[in-house]
């Protein structure tokens, strides 16, 4: 399965071509299917042999399981979309950490990315707090004004 991933590919999917991704989506929606069943509902316009070659490539990449059914194969996705996303992310991080000569350097990229992410999150939270504070202040001001009017 490792060979299907790349740190330079999409962040949430293994490096797959558009047609491979489409077939994987179809298989997730079917649960399991033969090539003929994939072609049957008409959403895939490619030739039978093209589909067969592509699902075979997905199988070899470790993304599908298959069992013989008559003269064809029935293909089943090995992972759910969430599992695939998690495994891809883990694999990307593993590749990143193993990529440099100095072992601490890739980790520092990760820490930097996390720090930037954390800082953004804290900025957003700070904005929310300030907005709530302004809201409270204006509520108090209004209450004070209405009290003043009642007294007059």
């Amino acid at each position, binding site marked *: 399965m490792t060979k299907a991933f790349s740190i330079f590919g999409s962040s949430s999917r293994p490096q797959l071509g558009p047609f491979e991704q489409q077939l994987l989506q179809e298989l997730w929606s079917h649960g399991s299917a033969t090539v003929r069943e994939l072609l049957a509902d008409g959403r895939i316009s490619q030739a039978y042999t093209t589909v067969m070659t592509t699902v075979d490539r997905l199988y070899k990449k470790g993304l599908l399981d298959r069992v013989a059914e008559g003269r064809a194969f029935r293909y089943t996705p090995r992972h759910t979309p969430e599992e695939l996303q998690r495994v891809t992310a883990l694999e990307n991080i593993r590749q990143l950490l193993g990529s440099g000569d100095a072992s601490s350097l890739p980790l520092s990229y990760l820490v930097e990315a996390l720090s930037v992410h*954390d*800082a953004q*999150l*804290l900025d957003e*939270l*700070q904005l*929310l*707090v300030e907005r*709530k*504070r302004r809201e*409270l202040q204006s509520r108090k001001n209004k209450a004070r004004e209405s009290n003043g009017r009642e007294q007059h």
Partner: protein
Amino acid sequence: MFALRGIAVSLTFFVLLYSLLSALVVVAWRSLKLVHAAEKSLAGLLFALRVLPLAASVVITFAFVVPSFQLLEPRSIDEGMGAMPLSLGVCALLLIACGCFRVITAQTKTSRVVARWLEGAHPLDVDANTQTVTFRSRCEAPPLTLVGVRKPRVLVSESTVALLSHDELHIALKHELAHMQSRDNLKKLVFRFCPFPGMAKLESAWSQTAELAADDAAVSKLDDAVDLAAALVKLSRLVPVEAAPVCTVGFVTGSISARVARLLAWDEAGKAQPMRIRPWYAIPSVLVALLCVFVTYGPTLALTHEVTEWLVR
């Protein structure tokens, strides 16, 4: 030989019961998430569940196993000890030794780190109600933390004092004092004493709930909630890389965004709604259980003795 056999049998029973109850707790604690109760009550329930295997094993061993062996085991028979009770007894001793070692290590490490944090610190405030001294420590210390078990102290770093407004600092200190009143550092130390694989998630859930409970205890009106949220966000930017030792409770712990969101959605009417589960709710059940034990003590001792005999063989 009789005494040695008694100790081995008791330890065997203890370790088996402890392991069985711990495994049950590891599997079953998630159902507590369905309980709709105040965070303080939930934290109490999670803590009770975490220490239940140890407490129940100790109580049952001393209340049933030891007396049943002393009263019902014939002293005249020189019975040999099987390999099973001997090895399980050694396991129990190892478990107890491991617990003691973890507690001593945690205490020593905490004392060492806190002594470093307290170098050059000076008292900031003395709370007469809680007998707590708040120290103003240097910038290397965590922004705001409660340290120690016997004599808890709150440490506030120089940068925290500079960064927070008076109200924010006041409410953040109230949060730490709430941890102190719940004896959260002592509870963490108790967790160290009773290790079992798979308990980390339960401990983490307790820690998160204890934070929310301390937030609830500190806040009494919406202004307080906003001040606490502001303090939380500001101090999140100061958190040091160094891991905190066991007997400390830092202010910036758990999911910050979840805590801030919860504080900003705080409303005075809502605070009274969740059910509080008070410890005295358990008194009737405990009394009934004690009565049952009192009535059936003889037969239970006989049954326990049969079980221990079976274990030994």
